[in-house]
């Protein structure tokens, strides 16, 4: 049985690297006495896979991993969430757990199609984010920005820098007010000005749009002065496409994807 777990990462724990978060959860699962399935061999390990690494310094309300439970283990959502939460450090909270089919197609990582982010600015570091009035002005600029046919940016890849059109990867973008929690430091452990951006962008491997790249590009388009160190980035959630026969199913949060069981894919039978 495969369980998909959604969790948050906020506060000082934003400095914990991706690999260390994985190791943290392996220990937490053991402390919570959750009957995780183990691989064979001399060093048995949990069968755990994480979706989309989150960069050090960013926070999130939508992180995911899949965990396989032992054959015959029972799963009670509330009990599972509660047990894990009793083992969490402040800053990491388990929000949901849901059973997903344990076939290869349905690995968390491969499913990720999009990510939503809230981007704010450290208090007093820009000249627009502290005034609520600037929202309408920014909205106009966003409108014009998105009306461009192409948005070419230089993207660093592993090998070189290449110019890419990121317009198709921007699904939505708006200027808005940040939550109280973001403004007062509960999320980033740093206070933020009230005005920020909410974006929904492609996060598919190969067409993963980094939020800082988009914001810095928009800032230079709109003539905004944004020091890179002022950016505060919070991932709101990760989404997959509701599987349909065609490519363009609806975007739904990863833990809400209902996998259509067809005859060709045999569900829940990895063992």
């Amino acid at each position, binding site marked *: 049985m495969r369980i998909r777990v959604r969790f948050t990462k906020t506060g*000082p724990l934003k*400095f914990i*690297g991706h690999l260390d978060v994985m190791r943290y959860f*392996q220990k937490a699962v*053991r402390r919570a*006495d959750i009957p995780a399935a183990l691989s064979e061999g*001399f060093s048995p390990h949990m069968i755990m896979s994480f979706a989309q690494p989150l960069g050090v*310094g960013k926070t999130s309300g939508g992180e995911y991993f899949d965990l396989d439970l032992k054959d015959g283990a029972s799963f009670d959502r509330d009990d599972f969430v509660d047990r894990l939460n009793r*083992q969490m450090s402040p800053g990491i909270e388990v929000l949901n757990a849901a059973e997903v089919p344990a076939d290869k197609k349905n690995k968390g990582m491969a499913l990720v199609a999009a990510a939503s982010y809230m981007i704010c600015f450290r208090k007093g570091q820009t000249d627009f984010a502290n005034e609520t009035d600037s929202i309408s002005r920014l909205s106009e600029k966003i409108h014009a920005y998105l009306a461009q046919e192409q948005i070419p940016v230089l993207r660093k890849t592993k090998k070189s820098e290449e110019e890419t059109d990121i317009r198709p990867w921007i699904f939505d973008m708006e200027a808005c007010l940040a939550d109280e929690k973001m403004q007062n430091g509960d999320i980033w452990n*740093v206070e933020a000005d009230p005005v920020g951006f909410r974006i929904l962008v492609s996060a598919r491997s190969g067409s993963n749009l980094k939020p800082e790249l988009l914001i810095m590009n928009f800032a230079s388009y709109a003539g905004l002065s944004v020091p890179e160190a002022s950016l505060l980035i919070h991932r709101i959630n990760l989404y997959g496409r509701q599987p349909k026969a065609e490519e363009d199913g609806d975007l739904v949060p990863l833990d809400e994807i209902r996998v259509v069981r067809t005859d060709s894919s045999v569900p829940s039978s990895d063992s």
Partner: protein
Amino acid sequence: MRKLALDDEILLSIDKPERYIGCEVNSVVKSREETEIRFAMCFPDVYEIGMSHLGIQILYDMFNRMDGVWCERVYSPWTDLDRVMRERHIPLFALESQDPVKDFDFLGITIQYEMCYTNILQILDLSGIPLHAEDRSENDPIVIGGGPCTYNPEPMAAFFDLFYIGEGETVYPALFDLYRKKKAGKIDRRGFLRRAAEIDGIYVPSLYQAAYHEDQTLASFTPVDPSVPEKVHKQIVMDLTDATYPDAPVVPYIQATQDRVVLEIMRGCIRGCRFCQAGMIYRPQREKDVKKLEEQAVRMLRSTGYDEISLSSLSSSDYSRLGELLDFLIRYCDGHGINISLPSLRIDSFSLDIMNKVQDIKKSSLTFAAEAGSQRMRDVINKGLTEEEIMDGALQAFRGGWNKVKFYFMLGLPGETEEDVLEIPHLCERVAECYYDNIPKEKRNGKIAITASSSFFVPKPFTPFQWAPMDRPEVYLDKAHSVKDEVRRQLNQKSIRYTYHDAWVSVLEGVFARGDRRIADVIETAYRHGALYDAWTETFHKEIWEEAFRSSGIDPYFYTARTRDTSELLPWDFIDCGVSRSFLEREWKNAQAGTVTPNCRERCSGCGCRQYQGGICFVPDGR
């Protein structure tokens, strides 16, 4: 919001910010208002190393169980953060509260190896605490040192208010009671130190004076007045079973060097290897009850979530109920996906059987701490390991499917001849031959892979070799080259890989190990000129140290290369570590004669540790 001592911009610009934010699972946060005594416990090396240390976990847990005491942790900032903190005048902070160390009541520093001495100065310096104890004021923390290096604290004496000689579990309550009097204003810092000197095991360096002969040897070492005890006696825990031990050790996010539950099964060692300081200063050997260990293992695995448990002791094979303990652990761990790691095992049929159960033979290697190549030399150092035992162990292991062998040797042991040196490659060759002669081709799991490494022998206080000369680095390097050349001349050269340690780091270690108070100047000078993290190859700079010796007018070889006469007053003679001076002298003579001394289980050799009235000295062989 959690207050962090470092702001976002700094944390995002340095390597591994997780080292500096605290918040780990099982770390302890108390309220400042309810805390009377704030103790900053420091391991003066980088976080991943410091977090791997068992002693701090024990004391951290013990202190935090005490009402009114809050113990927090401090590690050395890595060089990148060190630079930022100096530039921006950010004071060093403790992880839990992120408060400056300078505001604490105590700064406790564990001194596990000599090469961390400059890191200790960094800790004091970044904290804003005067380096010299004599310059500290009423509001500075009391700086206290502990750990194996305090068995000769003299090179670092100027920088500490107190040293704690022995195991930390014993006299802290008395020290804290006394400190409460200082806090209440009944005594001042000086008064506190005076009274602390009366507590068993506490050494207050400022209350002693050293004088030197013209030939630079120590002439006298005396208390400043008769109320100060002449001798400082090591404190130890006799009942290890009921001694305090953490139920829930702190679990780092970042991968520490020791990334597992550590179960201490006993203290001390029965073997009496003559080079080994731990084998002498932790005497007598004391075992923990097996049932207690089983409970502690389960409790710690459950509270940490680690997937590995390691047994800790100086020589696990000597734990009398090892079989019983391992049976239990194997049964428990098997169902939970937990690995067992077994360092410090002697290779024999018993340990091979166990290793077969808990390790993947294809990946694991056998380790022989042979220390010397020739039997003659192994007798000199009282290693208690015969060539026959090595060959038997290796053969059984090869038959069991192992084909990776690691050997640890020392070069520069007292009385070492060219023949002894060449026996290192010859022993490796014989082991390789044993493999090819006895394991038929079709059963071989590839070639045998022998890795031999040698370190440069450093004589340590309170060992029978405390009087022995240390080779000069050129001599050591010549010996290492002879080994290397001889390996190349042998038939199985391709199966043997030989490496050797740096020479200069060992010379320094030798100076610090047997140095006196005059060495403090060299350490401070080197630190002022940039020496830091000397235990790390990439940050060790020989030139800084050479210059520091030159400018301080101190000849390092006075401390290392000289054979000391047994009549010489040694800087650490004021410490009673349990092992008597007459025993050490006897053992030094036995070494020179190549006479083997039996281990404590075979026969008592009258080392002096019977005075503690327990442990192996009073327990019949239980195996």
